[in-house]
């Protein structure tokens, strides 16, 4: 081996070592702050509940059993844990609808911004990010003030004479949908905008030149080009809305549990930490599956014909 190549390998080796060293802080943080607690949660899900919260150090698979199945408290028959399943389903549904609504409202918004000139674009983007400056809880309570019985909207409509008595909006599904869409819209608009900004709009013009209808241009040209943005935005919206419970609780009245509430109940008044831990891990598994589904969909890529 020549001296030159030996020096080169040594240099490479040093380079690799330096890279590892430089990434140590990040790796440590991931290990200590992400993997560590997760392992604790996983461990707890296999222990028995303590009498007043906490866990007893004794192996038990009851928690996992109870995530999916339950023994009827009255006639002792074994059945799927319908209560848990319907709460899972409600959270999934909410996450799905939120993703859909933010997409419906976010797409035109992002398109509008992407087609402005550069300076105006910056102003619009800036406006989109403003809600992030305020805490989620405060924004949710502000929305509550707008739609409550004697709130801003009802008062305005009454004064204008458009309605004769206040429309009940707070504590309805409408309120939850409104709140979730409002809260997660920026997370959809930003990635959509990022991929729209890169579109070469001459292609769109070419499409029109070739007699494509407006809808055809949207479906055959814009949507395929924006697809990575749609997928990124959907992931960013879907995952947090799956675990969301502040917004549904405050605007929906908290009559129906979300997954987040169900988990909280086990760690709080329910005093069943193992079940709470098992439910958390189950939620994570769902997120992972959803993510894999999205990523596989994304990697298929290319314009779709259909």
């Amino acid at each position, binding site marked *: 081996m020549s001296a030159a190549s030996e020096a080169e390998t040594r240099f490479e080796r040093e380079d690799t070592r330096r890279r590892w060293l430089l990434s140590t802080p990040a790796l440590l943080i991931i290990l200590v702050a992400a993997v560590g607690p997760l392992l604790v949660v996983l461990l707890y899900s296999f222990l028995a509940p303590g009498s*007043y919260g906490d866990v007893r150090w004794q192996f038990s698979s009851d928690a996992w059993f109870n995530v999916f199945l*339950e023994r009827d*408290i009255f006639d002792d028959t074994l059945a799927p844990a319908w209560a848990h399943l319907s709460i899972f389903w409600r959270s999934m549904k909410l996450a799905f609808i939120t993703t859909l609504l933010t997409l419906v409202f976010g797409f035109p918004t992002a398109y509008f911004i992407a087609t402005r000139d550069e300076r105006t674009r910056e102003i619009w983007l800036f406006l989109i990010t403003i809600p992030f400056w305020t805490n989620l809880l405060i924004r949710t309570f502000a929305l509550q003030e707008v739609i409550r019985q004697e709130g801003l909207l009802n008062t305005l409509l009454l004064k204008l004479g458009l309605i004769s008595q206040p429309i009940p909006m*707070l*504590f309805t599904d409408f309120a939850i949908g409104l709140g979730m869409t409002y809260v997660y819209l920026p997370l959809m608009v930003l990635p959509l905008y990022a991929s729209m900004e890169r579109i070469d709009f001459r292609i769109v013009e070419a499409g029109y030149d070739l007699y494509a209808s407006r809808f055809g241009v949207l479906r055959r040209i814009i949507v395929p080009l924006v697809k990575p943005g749609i997928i990124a935005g959907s992931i960013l919206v879907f995952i947090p809305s799956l675990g969301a419970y502040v917004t549904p609780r405050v605007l929906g009245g*908290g009559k129906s549990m979300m997954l987040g509430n169900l988990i909280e*109940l086990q760690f709080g*008044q329910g005093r069943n930490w193992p079940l709470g831990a098992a439910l958390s891990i189950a939620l994570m598994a769902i997120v992972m599956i959803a993510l894999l589904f999205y990523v596989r969909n994304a990697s298929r890529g290319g314009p779709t014909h259909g």
Partner: protein
Amino acid sequence: MNWKGKLAALGLALAASTGMAHAEGVLNIFNWGNYTSPEMIKKFEDTYKVKVSITDYDSNDTALAKIRQGGHGFDIAMPSQNYIPIWIEEGLVQEIDAAQMENGKNIAEEWKNPPFDPGRKYSVPWALGTVGVVVNTDAYKGPADSWAAVFDPPEELKGKINIVPEMNDVIYAATKYHGGKICESDKDVLRKVRDTLLKAKPYWVAMEYSTIEKMVAGDFKATSDWNGSALRQRLRNPAIHYFYPKEGVLVWSDNIVLLKDAKNVENAKLFMNFMMDPENAAMNSAFHRYANGIAGSEAFMPADMKDAPEINVPADVMAKSDFSVACPQEVQELYTRIWTEVQK
């Protein structure tokens, strides 16, 4: 001395000075939010030259979990009576012998020897009250002296009821409604409890904690609630009344305990003694709007509390009521299942 030596000396001096400040006058309180009278604290600070800091918690379970972890730096906490046996059993608190303190004689007769802390070895009364029904009488004129007001409501209240989502309180209420007892584990009664809650749920508009502003603003016309909260509502809207359901109500209290790993034991004891002085207890009541378990404090209460129906529990109601206790884990599990079923 080189610079390292100087730095070390400086560090030592700093440590010593803060250490002394610690010993001289600090008291770290761990309490429920919006529950401690600032004037009362100011008076304590001025009298004993002690600097008080207060940290909030939002539930008994949070407080218990945090204290259990250790390293919290708090001296005293105010757990509810049903949790106090747990704190004692787990060795989280130390004996203070409240009765032997200078003001110990002021503890009201009925709170001198409570089942959750016989002989007041560990705790000093802070606040106490009941959980009942609040109705806006503009919306519903009829009698509301039964849990039926929220479980089997009259036409006028349907769809305008709120339930404060305290699992144990709600299930207790439904149990009493069906003639059961506290921590009921009888399956026949619990089945009725579940069915009643499931049937009542469509009549509820929300299950929320923030009752005061929503009752006053008219978003709710009735709610299950704590008496102090009901009093605050009535003071802002005279049509709002607190009712004691005839089936029985839950009586609860929060009490001051001295933590095992407290660093400022003397200041904590000063504070506990201070709180058993009727004038100070009344000052605190004027803020949180609950009674306090200190005899003679009535004389110092603000005028709007002296004979408030929310504060003074009628004797016949008291006879049918229960003192809040921690139910056994098996019962708690049944309750959690019913609660999940109701909110699924």
